[in-house]
């Protein structure tokens, strides 16, 4: 739970008074359960309530793409690709609280476990940069292949993986050694990552190959893959992008892009269990904290499909802004 930031002095006094009656110190804030969707072409954030209604649209920067919570989830970061900036929002109020400028075309990013270092892929600069999220200072920059996209930091904070879409490479950055220690050749157009909860396997989607490659984190070698082909589709229509692995490490969800489905994968067996029909060009994914619902951003139908993960059926599709890209859910 994140600490509750309250601006009104009266309210703050009230909270402090109430808190002092409680057996534990500190103040925690209830989560809203709202989903925050970045709309790449609409330059907006669409806010969805837990009862799956669009409740608010927030004007934001130019071409908002990746979104990520701060360590305590009291704030979130938005990559503003066409503004060369990262915008910082207060999660509770959805107010813009700051900007880090001079980050060339940020696409996606991941936060280091230290909560301070943000590792950003700079799509147009063939580089990954490490930025101090508090000072905005550029701490380090690493040369990647063209069009770096997905970024994944290991839970121990030692390694960073960056996918280069154009070069079909996964770059492995050792932050302590301050060096790229490996460039792993994967299949065509690698996009996003998911780590198994034990940190042993890195799953990377290869968009044009229509598969997910699996990399062993210890040896940094390819050890397997999972191919996707929903009934009635040709292989070239299957373009996986975002993927999520559940906390128990048993199941993965993979958005299949133009195949308009999400694949449900048995992670230990590396086998597809089912395909769930969603909207057009399913792209960004987010799971609720209890993992009962999967939110899917459909880039070409301008909506978000919410899937019930038990029945594996869509509950609803909610119209959002133009070209939804990524999703955060404020529920933990």
């Amino acid at each position: 739970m994140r600490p509750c930031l309250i601006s009104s002095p009266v309210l703050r006094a009230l909270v402090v008074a109430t808190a002092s009656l409680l057996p534990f110190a500190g103040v925690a804030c209830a989560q809203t359960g709202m989903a925050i969707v970045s709309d790449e072409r609409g330059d907006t954030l669409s806010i969805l309530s837990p009862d799956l209604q669009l409740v608010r649209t927030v004007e934001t920067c130019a071409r908002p793409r990746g979104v990520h919570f701060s360590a305590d989830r009291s704030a979130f970061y938005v990559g503003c690709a066409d503004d060369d900036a990262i915008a910082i929002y207060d999660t509770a109020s959805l107010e813009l609280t700051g900007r880090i400028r001079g980050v060339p075309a940020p696409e996606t990013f991941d936060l280091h476990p230290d909560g301070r270092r943000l590792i950003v892929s700079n799509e147009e600069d063939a580089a990954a940069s490490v930025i101090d999220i508090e000072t905005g200072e550029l701490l380090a920059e690493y040369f990647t292949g063209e069009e770096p996209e997905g970024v994944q930091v290991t839970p121990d904070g030692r390694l960073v993986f960056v996918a280069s879409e154009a070069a079909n490479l996964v770059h492995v950055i050792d932050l302590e050694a301050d060096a790229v220690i490996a460039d792993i050749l994967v299949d065509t157009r690698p996009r996003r990552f998911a780590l198994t909860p034990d940190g042993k396997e890195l799953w990377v989607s290869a968009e044009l190959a229509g598969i997910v490659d699996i990399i062993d984190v210890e040896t940094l070698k390819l050890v397997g893959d999972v191919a996707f082909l929903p009934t009635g589709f040709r292989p070239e229509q299957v373009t996986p992008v975002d993927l999520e692995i559940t906390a128990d490490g048993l199941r993965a969800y993979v958005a299949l892009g133009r195949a308009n489905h999400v694949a449900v994968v048995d992670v230990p067996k590396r086998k597809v269990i089912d395909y769930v029909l969603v909207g057009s060009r399913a792209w960004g994914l987010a799971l609720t904290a209890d993992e009962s619902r999967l939110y899917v951003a459909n880039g070409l139908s301008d909506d978000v499909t919410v899937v019930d993960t038990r029945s594996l059926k869509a509950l609803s599709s909610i119209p959002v802004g133009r070209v939804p890209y990524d999703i955060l859910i404020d529920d933990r």
Partner: protein
Amino acid sequence: MTFSSTIARALALLLLLSAPLAAQENLRIIYLGMAGDPYYEPQPGYTGLSLRDRHRPLEGVRLGLRDTRIMGRALGLSFELEEVMTEPAGLAGSFDAIKSSGPLAILLDLPPELMVEVAQLSGPNALLLNIRDASDRWRGEDCAPNLLHTMPSEAMLSDALAQYLRALNWRDVLLLRGSSDADAERTKAVRRSAAKFGLRIVDERMFELTNDPRRRDHNNIALLTGGARYDVVWLVDDVGDFGRFVPYATQAPRPVVGSEGLVAHAWHWTFERYGAPQLNQRFDRLAGRQMSSADWAGWAAVKALAEASIQAGSAEPARIREALVSPELSVDLYKGVRGNFRSWSGQLRQPIVLATSDAVLAVAPITGFEHQTETLDTLGQDGMTSDCRR
């Protein structure tokens, strides 16, 4: 790609990184153009107006090279580009010098007569990539075993447009064409595409660039487009000095496609999907202008060579060439699907972009056009119908 092929690649890569190639391997790519090529001269229509401001696709090629930078670090393979401008008379000499330097491939940006000469001079071991000429002859009767094409053929371009018209059910076509050789060839392609996709050419009329009132049935657009019932005007005008006056001037209120209006391209600067904006922006930053189809074809040639080198896991030209023409080749063309070369004609399989001056309306193959093995082969000459015997 299956896991076994991934493994094969990984193994190949290990081999590549081990003993024989421990050092950096330099692979040379030659761009061969003609000095003073009239194709790139501005063609002033009138009082300084240039209808065709063509640029050599060199910047596209250079961008392709730039995109391979990481391969040096990651794979121990680096590419270098040599740009050769030959005098028309000195082609034999230039070509000998090029061949003796042992390049991986030669990118051809040449007029047809020099293409013929190069095909004769090259011998079977030189790898040639045509990055300029869309003419069907190079994919048909004048094809060569060592000649590949990244520029789509006229047949592919007109098939793309025909699919689009058929999908909209704009079936009756008035074909309006110029009299140049290029127009004649393109007209042939249009007729074939119309037959292939079930369009009816209700009439075929030839325009003339003249104000002669006695020739008014060939220069007056209202007369040229009157007296027939049709859904769409398909215009064939290579030079463009007549065609640009046709839209909004037809007798019946009908759209114009082909050389004006909706045009089939290898690439377009407003393409928004499949990573295209990133490629367009990279190109713009390098060249300071919009990326053209020719630039794209140059870029795609280098991209295909780089991908083939990775898939070959070798710096040996023969192995790279084998990988380049393999059906397993998988090149990201930024058009949404994997590209590789047709075995029968050496043509790069690729989607075709249908665009107006500032918007991409569709990408062919249009949904619904199917093929027994490969949807992309609904565009252009298929293996069964190809005139290429290489």
